[in-house]
């Protein structure tokens, strides 16, 4: 038999279901958020590295002059080298027969069964293609709607078209990991290459190291030795990428983003705590007569304290039961989303102990902390004060400054005055509600601001890619010749020949400290509008002068114009003067610009180029794609070996899409905070209406219709909404600065510009007004539908 006082606790839980729901929802939203984020953080931290490591990523990935098995064998025997494999990378175009062309990187492997590095995970069909067959990496399915058994056309640089059957789909977690811009991949045997008109040689070297494959310095040492050996064989190394075995290249970025989400999650917990405090305050106020009666018949303060603490713990427990499985599922769903975008695999659904513990702590301790003061005060109240109901909303005179200010407002109609003055009657409750809504709104607005500043980054990046079509050839052609051929095509307005090549920055010890991608446009190029941070852009007559992207500062902090860098370029080492540093997003790649005239001379390609930028008379992505296809077919028709023709905006679009994913994550969090805010507002309005039921009855008795009562309640909600919007707009400034700084540092490795997005302010205004209206409409409707008898009987 349950003792009467515990029966009371049970009935307090059960009898007022809407209040129980409100408290449980307030707790559950925080518990859910923290469970989702902490769970995702743990799952991704573990699985991202584990999944990546399971594919045995190359510790050293080098692009070098063509080589064969002989070089591989000699590298394989080197100290520190565990395995060395070659790959042939060739850019081709592919299509479903009759469909549209899309770019694809074809990777040639000698023996698929002997692959030890960058393992391919079979997904469908046969993971080992026979000669003249192809298997596709799953990302390729985004651009190509093919299935195993379908034929694909491949257009080779020489213009020939070959058809191969897709025999399998695989996942490659390593090639292009962390590079959103990397093209989709297809795999063929080395023996297929001659049939495609390509040399059966490798141009990429993959190496795994002996010893600690997670020690980047060790890897760098092995890489230096390998480079040395390659160069001694008369080949050049164009680009070197070093990776640790169990750290996904994007791990730090993902963790940084999850860190932000975690911070937002904690904020939600804090906000839900303030909601709980609000609701429990109201509950205790409503229960004062009960407390009075219990004390009158002999209950001690500790007993009453104990009863309400058990009640609070029960709320927490119910919330935990709801939020634990949903939070766990959401954590897994979020992890899966991230995993699919980052191309790694999860180890399966599981309960994350850290998330579980955090959820339990949040569900039980936060309500206790939030409820301690109201419960303590409530249980210590004197019998007389409790029974007389002191502390209810019934007509206390108040002389606060807000009331004095409010009493001066005379020009509003009385019903509006009621809404206005009611808003400020429960100041602590109002304050907590405003806090919740303000923070929620500020984050919401902040996310939009961050989105704008990220987009601005993209727009800024666009200033370096002004061309409408970028053409690549598999060998250099005379600029004048290509210029004439392209300018003849209708709608083409301007053509520039650029050169691009890889270089290495050599440190004082003579080792490669960083890779540099050098672009060499004509110094008077119209197709680049650099944003200079320091120094100047290129000018005619520049020779060993470069302007470098700001990413250089991560390797050379404090580098300034006038400083010199030792570059290894085309096999030659020379000192180059940094004449300027420009703003440019590049996560793991340092971009530099040098004069076309000098570079072409250095490469003995004066007047020639294999890369061209074309400007057309219209600049939409669709138009650019159409023009790219036209120019491509024209030039191929003239016998030029075009390897790639790409719309200028396509690159930006891909990058924008990857940013959109991030923004969506942030928006989810913003919406969660908005949800907490709306629960808060609904709770506040519900409590306000509940406490003022009698007043609503009076209004009804003296002539207020349903709509007038609803208006009175809703206007109060809207006033709260408007105040919170105003405050959120102010608070969004520091939040924007903080968020955009953390995010852009995580993604771009450089701080972003503070920008405001009016859209965020407007959407939040609309949203908060709708939320306020919705949050008040239900209690208002209930209030309007109560009969006066019920209302006047309500105590």
């Amino acid at each position, binding site marked *: 038999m349950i003792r009467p006082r515990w029966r009371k606790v049970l009935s307090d839980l059960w009898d007022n279901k809407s209040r129980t729901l409100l408290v449980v929802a307030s707790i559950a939203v925080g518990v859910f958020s923290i469970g989702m984020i902490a769970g995702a953080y743990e799952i991704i931290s573990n699985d991202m590295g584990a999944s990546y490591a399971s594919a045995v990523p190359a510790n050293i990935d080098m692009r070098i002059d063509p080589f064969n098995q002989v070089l591989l064998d000699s590298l394989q025997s080197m100290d520190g080298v565990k395995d060395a494999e070659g790959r042939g990378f060739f850019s081709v175009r592919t299509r479903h027969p009759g469909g549209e062309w899309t770019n694809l990187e074809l990777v040639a492997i000698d023996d698929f069964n002997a692959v030890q590095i960058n393992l391919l995970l079979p997904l469908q069909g046969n993971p080992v293609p026979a000669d003249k067959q192809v298997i596709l990496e799953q990302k390729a399915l985004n651009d190509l709607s093919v299935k195993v058994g379908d034929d694909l056309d491949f257009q080779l640089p020489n213009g020939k078209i070959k058809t191969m059957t897709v025999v399998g789909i695989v996942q490659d977690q390593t090639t292009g990991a962390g590079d959103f811009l990397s093209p989709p991949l297809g795999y063929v045997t080395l023996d297929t290459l001659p049939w495609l008109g390509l040399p059966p040689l490798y141009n990429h070297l993959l190496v795994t190291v002996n010893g600690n494959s997670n020690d980047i310095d060790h890897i760098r040492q092995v890489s230096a030795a390998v480079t040395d050996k390659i160069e001694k064989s008369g080949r050049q190394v164009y680009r070197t990428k070093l990776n640790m075995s169990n750290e996904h290249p994007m791990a730090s970025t993902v963790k940084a983003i999850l860190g932000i989400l975690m911070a937002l999650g904690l904020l939600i917990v804090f906000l839900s705590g303030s909601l709980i405090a609000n609701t429990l305050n109201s509950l205790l106020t409503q229960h004062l007569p009960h407390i009075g009666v219990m004390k009158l018949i002999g209950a001690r303060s500790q007993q009453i304290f104990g009863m309400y603490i058990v009640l609070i713990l029960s709320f927490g427990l119910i919330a935990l039961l709801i939020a634990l499985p949903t939070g766990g599922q959401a954590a897994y769903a979020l992890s899966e989303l991230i995993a699919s975008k980052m191309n790694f695999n999860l180890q399966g659904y599981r309960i994350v102990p850290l998330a579980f513990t955090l959820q339990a702590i949040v569900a039980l301790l936060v309500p206790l902390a939030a409820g301690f003061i109201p419960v303590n005060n409530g249980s210590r109240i004197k019998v007389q004060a409790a029974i007389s109901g002191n502390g209810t909303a019934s*007509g206390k005179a108040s002389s606060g400054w807000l009331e004095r200010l409010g009493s001066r407002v005379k020009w509003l*109609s009385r019903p509006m005055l*009621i809404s206005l003055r009611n808003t400020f*009657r429960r100041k602590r409750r109002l304050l907590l509600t405003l806090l919740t809504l303000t923070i929620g709104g500020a984050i919401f607005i902040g996310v939009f601001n961050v989105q704008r500043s990220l987009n601005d980054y993209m727009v800024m990046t666009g200033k370096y890619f002004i061309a409408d079509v970028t053409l690549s050839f598999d060998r250099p052609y005379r600029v004048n010749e290509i210029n004439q051929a392209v300018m003849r095509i209708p709608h083409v307005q301007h053509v520039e020949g650029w050169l691009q090549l890889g270089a290495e920055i050599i440190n004082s010890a003579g080792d490669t400290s960083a890779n540099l991608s050098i672009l060499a446009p004509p110094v008077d190029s119209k197709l680049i509008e650099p944003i200079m941070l320091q120094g100047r852009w290129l000018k005619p007559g520049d020779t060993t002068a470069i302007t470098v992207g700001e990413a250089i500062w991560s390797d050379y902090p404090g580098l300034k114009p006038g400083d010199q860098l030792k570059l290894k370029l085309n096999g030659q080492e020379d000192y180059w003067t940094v004449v300027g540093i420009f703003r440019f997003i590049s996560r793991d790649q340092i971009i530099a610009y040098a004069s076309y005239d000098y570079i072409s001379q250095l490469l003995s390609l004066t007047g020639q180029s294999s890369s061209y930028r074309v400007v057309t008379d219209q600049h939409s992505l669709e138009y650019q794609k159409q023009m790219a296809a036209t120019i491509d077919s024209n030039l191929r028709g003239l016998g030029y070996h075009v390897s790639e023709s790409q719309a200028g905006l396509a690159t930006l679009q891909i990058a924008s899409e990857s940013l959109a994913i991030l923004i969506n994550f942030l928006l989810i969090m913003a919406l969660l905070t908005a949800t907490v805010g709306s629960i808060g507002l609904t709770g506040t309005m519900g409590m306000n209406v509940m406490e003022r039921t009698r007043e609503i009855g*009076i*209004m009804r*008795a003296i*002539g207020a219709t349903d709509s007038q009562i609803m208006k009175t309640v809703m206007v109060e909600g809207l006033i709260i909404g408007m105040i919170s919007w105003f405050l959120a707009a102010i608070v969004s400034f520091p939040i924007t600065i903080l968020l955009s700084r953390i995010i852009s540092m995580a993604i771009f490795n450089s701080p972003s510009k503070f920008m405001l997005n009016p859209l965020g302010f407007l959407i939040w205004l609309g949203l908060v007004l709708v939320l306020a209206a919705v949050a008040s409409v239900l209690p208002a409707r209930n209030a309007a539908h109560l009969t*006066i008898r019920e209302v006047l009987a309500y105590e």
Partner: protein
Amino acid sequence: MNSAYTPSLIQLRQVVKRFKNSAGEFVALRGVNVDIPTSEFVAIVGKSGSGKSTLLNMITGIDHPTSGEVLVNGVNIYQMTESQRALWRGCNMGIVFQFFQLMPMLTLHENTMLPMDYCNVFSPAERPERAMELLKMVGLEQQAHKLPAAVSSGQQQTAAIARAMATDPPIIVADEPTGNLDSRSSDEIIELFNRLVEQGKTIILVTHDPSITKRTLRTLIISDGEIIDEAVAQALPLLSHAKMLKVTHLVKRMEISPGGMIIRKGQNVDNFFIIVRGQVEIVLESSKRPEVTLGQLGPGEFFGEIELIHGGDSIASVRAAPDAPVELVALPHKDFAEMLVGSPLTEEALSRIVQARLAQNRSADRRTGWW
């Protein structure tokens, strides 16, 4: 008072109200019929739980009857929606509550303007002035801009009356308006109500206070969900409400044409008669002598008690006044006797009246030479 010839402002017809709760069904009103004409000052009294607040709620449209109808000014108020009724009530009825129920966040002046805003009566520019006039009328002009909590209980209640007058409604309904006031404040409130009645308002108030019922024009007593016959209550005020109700159930209603004989001298008397409406004449008649009118009795007065208490035939004739019919209720001899046994106070009071009337008859006889 002669309500029969005045069109009723408020009519309750067979109003039944049942409440259901977990303990079962409870009947608060059992087929109540009430007529209240314009400009009446009516007190509704009854013990706790008798149904007086429910009756008031039926009149104000605050609660729904289970069956029956309520017509106010000819309008069946329960054919409106709750919301329409609220507006209608705001315009037609001022309500004064026991606990004042002013809006705590509005000043007395703003509180008084509020019904005008809701009902959209008087132009917005006129409202402040009218509210101030009303507050002046109730003597609160100095307090007009104070919040309710800053004035005394009596002042709050007078402000509530001012608010009830805001839309100039023909009816004011007050639920225990003096229940929380000292006697001085109570007097002032009742005085205020009297002035309003003089101005043509109809006032209905629920009260426990007998001193207030003395100052109203009419008293409706409710007991166990039924209205006690007003004539019975008036004639037999010392009966408990339960007994009054019992008598109400036992009496037979009769209507006598103008001049119609009710009791003839010398006849056996079987009933105790109470006059509900109209007048009766008590006469001594004889073929040998000219008829002598001993007196006239009106509503709430009774006859027949002398014969029932003392026994014997009627000592005089009683007939309806010649100008109008008379409505009576008649309590059979046996029930009358039981009533007296159950209420010694009433028996004592009736005995005194009988003695007085007999003395009066004897002196009349001597004057007229009947004996």
